[in-house]
């Protein structure tokens, strides 16, 4: 397998609603920052890949507008996934594994603020026969999963509040966070339910942001990372697995997809999730954290979401990409030798991707 690593990462601030910029203008400064840190030209980038979703942006082929932020003239080699840009990283990583080039730029943009009522969007992402016609409350399937976890004794409401409190306290150190603060668990537990047992703070806050990650292969990665004054974060493994969509067809308390993806990633990387120092988890809800910790087999002592994680900012289709970028940055800044990044898609953690990253020896 070819050595492919993250050599640059940049992100915009997560805003509850950006009413000043179009997609290209949110992205442009973030891309400029990432590219400038490497001292390269646009023509040095062999492949561009992005992730966004028309139902959030409210237009068909919305991603075409964001292409203006990378400049598609002269023509570029480009691809797009209609989902979280973490999957665009997977495509770019595979593309580099094929030896098609040495440098790839991946960007994700999420606009969670454009839909007036998020419930109008959330049901469009569901099964069109048995779920979408019911227009479920956007937190309904997550609420079911959380309640099932409590009933199964996997976690408690107090433990979920602790996840939120720890995440928002960690986010005090993250200048891009949308939400942060010091909260006492008993204050959080005094808040009303939005979809019991979930409270408003248990759900990641939708918003707008962009993120950019540059991948490079082999010695080119070492050269570029050195120019940026950082260490390459080698992506030693990526694997993603999907479960069935309908929430009544699977055991909502168990993430077999994560277990399988983690096993395969472990074989590919030569080390396991249990061996990482830091894990960035795509927790769209607080209850996802204990589930993921269990499915990944993360021991006590693994640092979880030191950025604050999605509970501190959830720019829809950029959220999973930011997990990869934050994990890479922990390796780049030397605070972790090995890191895990998780991304999810679909209702109740239907589709999961596990990436294992490692710094240079």
């Amino acid at each position, binding site marked *: 397998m070819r050595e492919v690593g993250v050599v640059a990462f940049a992100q915009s601030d997560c805003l509850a609603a950006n*009413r*000043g910029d179009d997609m290209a203008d949110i992205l442009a400064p973030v891309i400029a920052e990432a590219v400038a840190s490497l001292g390269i030209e646009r023509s040095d980038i062999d492949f561009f890949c992005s992730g966004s979703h028309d139902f959030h942006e409210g237009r068909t082929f919305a991603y075409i507008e964001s*292409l203006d932020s*990378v*400049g598609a*003239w002269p023509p570029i080699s480009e691809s797009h996934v209609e989902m979280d840009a973490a999957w665009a990283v997977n495509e770019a990583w595979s593309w580099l594994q094929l030896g098609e080039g040495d440098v790839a730029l991946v960007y994700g943009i999420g606009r969670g603020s*454009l839909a007036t009522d998020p419930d*109008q969007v959330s049901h469009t992402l569901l099964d*069109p*026969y048995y779920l979408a016609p019911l227009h479920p409350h956007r937190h309904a399937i997550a609420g079911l999963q959380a309640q099932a976890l409590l009933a199964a004794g996997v976690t408690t409401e107090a433990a979920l509040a602790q996840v939120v409190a720890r995440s928002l306290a960690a986010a005090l150190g993250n200048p891009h966070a949308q939400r942060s603060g010091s909260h006492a668990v008993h204050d959080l537990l005094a808040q009303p339910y939005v979809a019991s047992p979930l409270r408003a703070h248990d759900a990641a806050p939708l918003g707008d942001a962009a993120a950019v990650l540059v991948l490079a292969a082999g010695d080119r990665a070492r050269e570029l990372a050195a120019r940026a004054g950082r260490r390459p974060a080698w992506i030693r493994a990526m694997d993603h697995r999907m479960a069935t969509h309908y929430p009544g067809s699977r055991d909502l308390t168990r993430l077999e997809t994560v277990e399988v993806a983690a096993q395969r990633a472990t074989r590919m990387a030569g080390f396991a999730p249990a061996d990482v120092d830091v894990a960035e988890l795509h927790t769209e809800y607080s209850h996802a954290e204990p589930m993921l910790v269990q499915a990944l087999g993360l021991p006590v002592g693994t640092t979880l979401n030191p950025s604050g994680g999605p509970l501190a900012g959830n720019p829809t289709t950029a959220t999973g990409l930011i997990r990869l970028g934050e994990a890479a940055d922990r390796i780049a800044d030397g605070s972790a030798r090995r890191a895990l990044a998780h991304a999810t898609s679909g209702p109740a953690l239907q589709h999961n991707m596990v990436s294992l990253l490692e710094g240079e020896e």
Partner: protein
Amino acid sequence: MSSVRPSTATDLPAPVRTISAPFHVDYTYVAGVGRSVYLRGMAERRFLARRCPGCGQVYFPAPQHCARCLQVLDPPFEIPGTGAVSTFCIVNLPFPGQLVEPPYVVAYINLDGTGNKLQHRVLEVAPGDVAVGMQVEPVWTDDDRLEPSLASVRYFRPADPALRDGGHDA
């Protein structure tokens, strides 16, 4: 106790073929700082273009950044709004929400002083008389209907009055 009873083919209902599956989402459109310049101009009967300091490309409508050089475009300046037909088609099909009764011409117009094309209707001319290279000028809507939208330009028409048929002005 079991409540599961086999169902035979004869007692099954004829299948439903389709369901109504409407989709409705209310959004906020954010034009962006760049496109807002041209939109505000439209409400004042002005065509406001912007030039790239890197490659000299002039855009109308202009985004904030040059899509080739990625540089922020220079401040806006006014162009006349006249231009030449670059290519066109004759619309013969009716469709819901159509503003003009077919047949009529939709053209790409090279606006004078810019380097990109603008799509708009070309009316006041028989479709068969439209040609590539034809000089055209904008026809604005009435003052009380001006808005920050390209809809403030009702259509384009031949710049030469002799080429207008006068009959089809939407």
